[in-house]
């Protein structure tokens, strides 16, 4: 086993980024910044060769495979071995500013030839090579670098950005030509005709099938592991155990770097921490041979006591799940694995105790939002191969291609430059594909065997070993005055991250930051603690903490309103945040650091409430349904929601646009369309800016070799963040087009207007098509490529707002809850594509309804999930669909591209509280343990003595 870290790829020296980094809420207590050079246990004995093929069998002892460590011993792709020990330490990021320099000004003169060097010769130079023998030195250097970065982080130096910043507000055009119209999805026809656009839709000769043996135990040490029988199975090409792979701590969370999630996960380890955890990797000619090999691997486990109750995880004497010395947090944030305490965040506004004293009524209740899985219909899948230049290609179903490249390089200790990640069409993600779960294994197999390989999760694996929603214990206490003033609110959360701390801190922070600003509350206390358990691993899931916290807060708000005898809508109308207002929470809670303060510049919540009330028939129905005769009662309930749009001053998106002779444009997007339609709406934004149609944009997303960087599809950021980058690039391209046209027409640029791919001169006497202009620029005079790259970092995260209404029927004899009608109004600013925005809303809320009513993980007492399939984990189908009515409330968010905010996440948060509140209206019981299945509702009714009639 190697000492951790020595080969971590380390993009250093990015001043803007480092400066933006954490001021941890709590300094890490002796935090494991510096990995204790793990004294490798049991690593001298040569593990047996594991490959079946003669060639591979000759492979010498599996020493640590980190290319840095043992170049001679481990043929992890010859090329990489020969590489310098320090994996690519990129020089400072190439200035994306190059094309910005292109002036739009020279009217008579076509822009100088040299200027538009659009694609900077990007490949960052590697740091001077250090050869393997000089390893010690390298380690020192890397450690120094790490320290320097961390120091900077701590100092939180704010340096001015070296790149030109473009305007942070966007004017509303007099009229939208392309934006705000429901254009058809660019990839729509291809998708509905079954074009082979998904990850697994390629045929590769010699493809190996990967299967990973999952742990049968929730918590165990692997005392011995013997793959010798497995290798003998015909068709089995390789078996890898923890002894054969590099040991480099990292996180699977695809987040900004360094990540606010702990480095507690290994490619393979000698310890397993949940049922389904990786034990060994098999690659074989057929899936059947791989499966059979998994059954033949002999593993001797020392079973440890598991931690299955998050409430007990931190108790003294609890078994320690991460007792390995080399786990650590890459940022100076709280991390205390010795007590299964993965993350902590807290903040205070004012003095809650004082607030409670000022209140006329104080209520307290604990809510238990539950485990759930994203259930993308396409499970995780990754295909890997070596291209003709011997570089590793990962074609993978990911939301985060650039993070996937970085984390794969990090995990295997290979240079980042060796990897190309291609994101084809994705069959849904919802957050679970914001994790790098397959790429490292595929990379390992392909680099070692030099053959293409595929790993596709089964549906059961998707449930058990992909990612889940963090289940939480949310205790909320709130005080209110008789007039409806909210004096104080305290929310204390225990979040269960399962066996690994993916998104451990940020999800729990979001419980506060995306929920608490919604209401004006005098005094606030927020404490979030994330614990490890030996249960399935949680991660990012649409809603991202806001789902769990909104449930608790919105139920509590109803309870407070009832306590003072006020209609819950009136109560919310009195208290919710409005345009021109702010909340101290924005600043107090960020992602692994302080947040960004912000004034609300657009808020259509009042209209969402108003219109939704009418639609559900609130006035006529509220409080009436429970009076009905017979065992079946009806009720209506509602809730209000907010989310964010992007992670301000952390995440970055960029895009490259170039013009073609026929007046079309290639638009190379780092942003990752995972089925949301972001390719289409970003094309609409570009077309609006350029003066053409959205299908003039030939969109390609995303590919780490060909598209510029983007953090990926998460945090409700693509429209707001990457849309800003698109405007930035498109504006430059537009200026270039006008400059060329001006010179061709011999008119000043100010005279020119663009209308639907045609540039007109003064009085419309002169006109040139885009095609003519591009041909001139490419072939005729002062030739250059019209094109530009645009980047964008956001400086706010304006919340979209939403109001949800549910009408339910509760059978008091059976406990059965049926949603009769569901109404949701959303303010997402300008809907770039109203139909797609509406689709996001409907999809999100149906997932939310399903989550609230039927989706549930069942475990046995050993931590095994009992229902990892669609038969027993029930997600809604069409037959379950209630009447759904959704509408958009247009506002204009000045900081968003053409006034847009986010829309993708917010609506999943509504159903749980809206339905719970409706159930209360119907039968007078408050449900705190979702999903609201018949059994649970019946039990609650019995307890309250309200069963039957």
């Amino acid at each position, binding site marked *: 086993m190697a000492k951790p870290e020595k080969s971590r790829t380390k993009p250093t020296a990015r001043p803007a980024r480092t400066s933006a980094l954490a001021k941890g809420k709590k300094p890490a207590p002796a935090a494991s910044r510096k990995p204790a050079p793990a004294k490798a246990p049991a690593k001298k004995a040569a593990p047996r060769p594991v490959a079946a093929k003669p060639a591979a069998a000759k492979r010498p002892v599996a020493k640590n495979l980190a290319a840095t460590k043992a170049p001679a011993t481990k043929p992890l792709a010859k090329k990489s071995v020969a590489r310098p020990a320090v994996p690519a330490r990129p020089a400072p990021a190439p200035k994306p500013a190059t094309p910005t320099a292109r002036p739009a000004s020279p009217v008579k003169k076509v822009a100088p030839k040299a200027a538009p060097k659009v694609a900077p010769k990007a490949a960052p130079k590697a740091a001077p090579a250090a050869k393997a023998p000089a390893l010690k030195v390298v380690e020192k250097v890397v450690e120094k670098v790490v320290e320097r970065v961390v120091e900077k982080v701590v100092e939180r130096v704010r340096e001015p950005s070296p790149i030109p910043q473009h305007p942070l507000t966007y004017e509303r055009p007099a009229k939208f030509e392309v934006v705000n119209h429901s254009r058809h999805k660019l990839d729509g026809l291809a998708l509905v*005709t*079954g074009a082979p656009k998904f990850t697994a839709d390629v045929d590769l000769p010699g493809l190996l099938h990967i299967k990973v043996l999952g742990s049968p135990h929730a918590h165990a040490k692997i005392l011995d592991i013997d793959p010798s029988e497995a290798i003998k199975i015909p068709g089995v090409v390789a078996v890898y155990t923890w002894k054969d792979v590099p040991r480099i701590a990292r996180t699977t969370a695809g987040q900004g770097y360094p990540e606010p999630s702990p480095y507690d996960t290994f490619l393979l380890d000698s310890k397993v921490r949940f049922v389904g955890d990786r034990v060994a990797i098999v690659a074989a000619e057929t899936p059947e041979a791989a499966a059979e090999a998994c059954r033949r691997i002999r593993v001797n486990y020392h079973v440890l006591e598991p931690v299955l109750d998050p409430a007990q995880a931190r108790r003294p004497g609890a078994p320690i799940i991460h007792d390995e010395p080399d786990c650590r947090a890459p940022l100076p944030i709280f991390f205390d694995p010795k007590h299964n305490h993965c993350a902590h965040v807290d903040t205070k506004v004012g003095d809650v105790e004082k607030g409670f004293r000022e209140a006329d009524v104080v209520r307290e209740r604990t809510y238990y939002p539950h485990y759930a899985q994203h259930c993308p219909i*396409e499970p995780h899948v990754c295909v890997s191969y070596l291209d003709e230049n011997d570089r590793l290609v990962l074609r993978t179903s990911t939301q985060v291609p650039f993070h996937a490249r970085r984390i794969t390089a990090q995990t295997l200790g290979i240079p980042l430059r060796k990897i190309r990640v291609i994101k084809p069409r994705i*069959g*849904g993600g919802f957050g679970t594909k914001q994790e790098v779960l397959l790429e490292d294994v595929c990379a390992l197999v392909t680099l070692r065997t030099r053959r293409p390989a595929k790993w596709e999760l089964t549906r059961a694996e998707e449930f058990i070993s992909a990612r889940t929603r963090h289940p939480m214990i949310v205790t909320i206490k709130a005080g209110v005055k008789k007039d409806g003033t909210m004096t104080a609110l305290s929310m204390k959360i225990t979040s269960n991250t399962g066996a690994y701390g993916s998104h451990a801190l940020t999800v729990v922070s979001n419980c506060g930051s995306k929920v608490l600003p919604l209401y004006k509350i005098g005094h606030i206390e927020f404490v979030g603690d994330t614990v490890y358990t030996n249960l399935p691993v949680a991660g990012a899931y649409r809603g991202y903490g806001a789902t769990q916290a909104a449930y608790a807060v919105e139920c509590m708000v109803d309870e407070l309103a009832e306590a003072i005898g006020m209609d819950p809508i009136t109560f919310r109308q009195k208290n919710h945040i409005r345009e021109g207002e702010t909340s101290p929470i924005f600043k107090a809670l960020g992602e692994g650091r302080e947040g960004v303060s912000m004034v609300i510049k657009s808020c259509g919540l009042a209209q969402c409430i108003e219109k939704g009330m009418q639609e559900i028939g609130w006035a006529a129905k509220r409080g009436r349904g429970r009076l009905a005769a017979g065992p079946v009662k009806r009720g209506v309930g509602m809730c209000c929601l907010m989310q964010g749009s992007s992670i301000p001053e952390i995440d970055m998106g960029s895009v490259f646009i170039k013009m073609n002779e026929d007046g079309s444009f290639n638009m190379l997007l780092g942003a990752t369309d995972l089925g949301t339609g972001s390719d289409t709406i970003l094309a609409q934004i570009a077309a609006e800016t350029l003066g053409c149609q959205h299908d003039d944009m030939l969109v390609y997303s995303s590919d780490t070799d060909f598209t510029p960087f983007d953090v990926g599809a998460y945090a409700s950021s693509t429209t707001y963040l990457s849309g800003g980058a698109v405007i930035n690039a498109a504006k430059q391209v537009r200026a270039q087009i006008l400059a060329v046209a001006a010179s061709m027409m011999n008119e000043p640029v100010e005279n020119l207007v663009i209308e639907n791919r045609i540039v007109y001169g003064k009085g419309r006497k002169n006109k040139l098509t885009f095609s003519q202009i591009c041909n001139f620029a490419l072939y005729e005079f002062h030739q250059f490529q019209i094109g530009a790259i645009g980047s964008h970092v956001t400086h706010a995260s304006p919340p979209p707002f939403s109001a949800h209404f549910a009408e339910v029927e509760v059978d008091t004899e059976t406990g059965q809850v049926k949603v009769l009608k569901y109404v949701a109004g959303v303010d997402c600013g300008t809907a770039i594509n109203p139909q797609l925005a509406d689709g996001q809303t409907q999809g999100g809320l149906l997932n939310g309804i399903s989550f609230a009513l039927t989706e549930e993980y069942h475990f046995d007492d050993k931590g095994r999930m009992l229902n990892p399939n669609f038969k027993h984990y029930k997600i809604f189908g*069409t037959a379950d*669909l209630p009447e759904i009515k959704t509408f958009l409330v247009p506002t204009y968010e000045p900081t968003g591209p053409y006034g847009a905010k986010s829309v993708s996440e917010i609506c999943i948060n509504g159903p749980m509280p809206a339905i719970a509140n409706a159930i209360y209206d119907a039968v007078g019981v408050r449900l705190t343990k979702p999903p609201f299945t018949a059994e649970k509702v019946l039990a609650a009714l019995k307890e309250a003595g309200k069963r039957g009639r």
Partner: protein
Amino acid sequence: MKLTLTINGKLRSIEIAPNVMLLDVLRAAGYKGVKKGCGEGSCGACAVLIDGRPRNSCLTFAAQCEGSEVLTVEGLGTPENPHPLQDAFVRHGATQCGYCNPGSLIAAKSLLDHTPAPTWEDVKEALDGNLCRCTGYVKRIEAVLDAASLGKK
């Protein structure tokens, strides 16, 4: 063994192992529109028409299909000449990630074959086996009803 069947109107003869599923045979034969979402008969992504009836190809042994006529989404229409259902799916925004579409389109086609003028409830019933996690189904049902109404004209 040799399997002879008609796929999307073309007679094909394919060498198969006796225990393979139709899903895998179709995909290997190039019909990548047939998707795998669960492999256990509960998501409908792999649906195809076998002799006019919708079947989950992941649960159908290929060997059972000797002499059958199989229709996959590729046989429904092409980007240049899409089936009215395909066209309606795009117009109504019933495709987000699109992974469920091949199966749901096949189920919808089967519905319209037998019930040319379905009600909202008919569509809900007929497409219940084709899970979609993206759209929330409303637009899908609207699309099917729209395609049906166009078909009547």
